[in-house]
């Protein structure tokens, strides 16, 4: 019996499988965080919404000029901490995260937007550099036990945001976790 004769009846089944599942077993889990923290045996993820006063104090202490402080006060900062607890590599890519509120997709204020904004305002390069270092990396492969963090920045709308995060683990990124943080609100200064 020829091999093609043997495989032919299996062809419809093979075509119905997702391509990457031929190479490896992909598992995907959809989870919901309680509040602003999530952790399992593979990673921990923490969100901390910052008040305008906290953000202003941080950049003021770094010597940022008042026009830049006024600018950061206008937007919503959420500090993200992500730690790889596994023995494998963890893949992080912000382009795979989704941010929504009751009206639909919420767009982050991205690095190029900040660069354009800061250049227009004439913010010194050293402050722009410090500012970039305080942002969450857009893409990073975390080594086992590595932890990194940084800020995500959104327009300050007052509406709660739902963050759907996506984390992939392992050499072939075969373990996928989608963790949803519901109703995250931008922190306000106490009145």
């Amino acid at each position, binding site marked *: 019996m020829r091999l093609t004769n043997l495989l032919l009846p299996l062809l419809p089944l093979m075509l119905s499988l997702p391509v990457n599942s031929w190479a490896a077993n992909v598992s995907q889990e959809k989870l919901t965080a309680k509040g602003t923290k999530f952790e399992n045996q593979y990673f921990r993820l923490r969100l901390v919404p910052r008040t305008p006063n906290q953000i202003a104090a*941080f950049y003021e202490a770094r010597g940022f000029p008042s026009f830049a402080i006024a600018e950061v006060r206008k937007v919503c900062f959420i500090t993200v901490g992500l730690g790889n607890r596994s023995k494998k590599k963890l893949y992080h890519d912000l382009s795979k995260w989704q941010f929504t509120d009751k009206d639909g997709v919420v767009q982050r204020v991205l690095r190029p937007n900040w660069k354009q904004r800061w250049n227009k305002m004439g913010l010194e*390069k050293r402050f722009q*550099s410090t500012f*970039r270092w305080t942002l969450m990396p857009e893409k*990073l492969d975390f080594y086992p036990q590595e932890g990194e963090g940084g800020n995500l920045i959104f327009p300050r709308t007052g509406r709660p945001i739902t963050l759907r995060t996506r984390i992939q683990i392992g050499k072939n990124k075969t373990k996928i976790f989608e963790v949803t943080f519901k109703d995250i609100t931008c922190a306000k200064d106490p009145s």
Partner: protein
Amino acid sequence: MNLVRLLLLFFLIGASQFLLAIEPPAKIIELDKQPAQNFLVEDYDGNKYELKSSKGRWVFLHFWASWCGPCRKEMPLLYKLQKRLKDKNIDFVLINTSEDEDTIFEFLGGVAPDLHSYMDKDGELTELWAPRGLPTTFFIDPKGRRRYLALGGRPWDKAEYQQFIFQLLNEK
């Protein structure tokens, strides 16, 4: 019988290579030995340092900023480590990212007054080296190649880290 001896010899050579191999401690990552790009930096007194001047010596290249919590914690340990390795074949090169003279001077004065740092005034050198975060340490070997990367602040006072550095220094 000769074959057995030969196999035993191969086994012993293999085992000795295994035992001599440098095993980095936690959160120290082995890099791919790419040549490290040369750079020139200045300290707040105008003293210059160029990476290529360290050829033939190991370089402990450390990026930091006063606003990062782990950097604060690590500085006194770096100072002790530097003192311990004073006469060894390794240069300690600390580079502050994007802060001014006053901030650096005030900060180091508070945590490790005898520690010396160069400045990356506009942050461009740091971006070029692309550390994964701050602080980050690169180990550059005497041939000028990027050999290891330390993730974040490390407990340099611990025996395993000091042993690792001594192993590097004894590398043939």
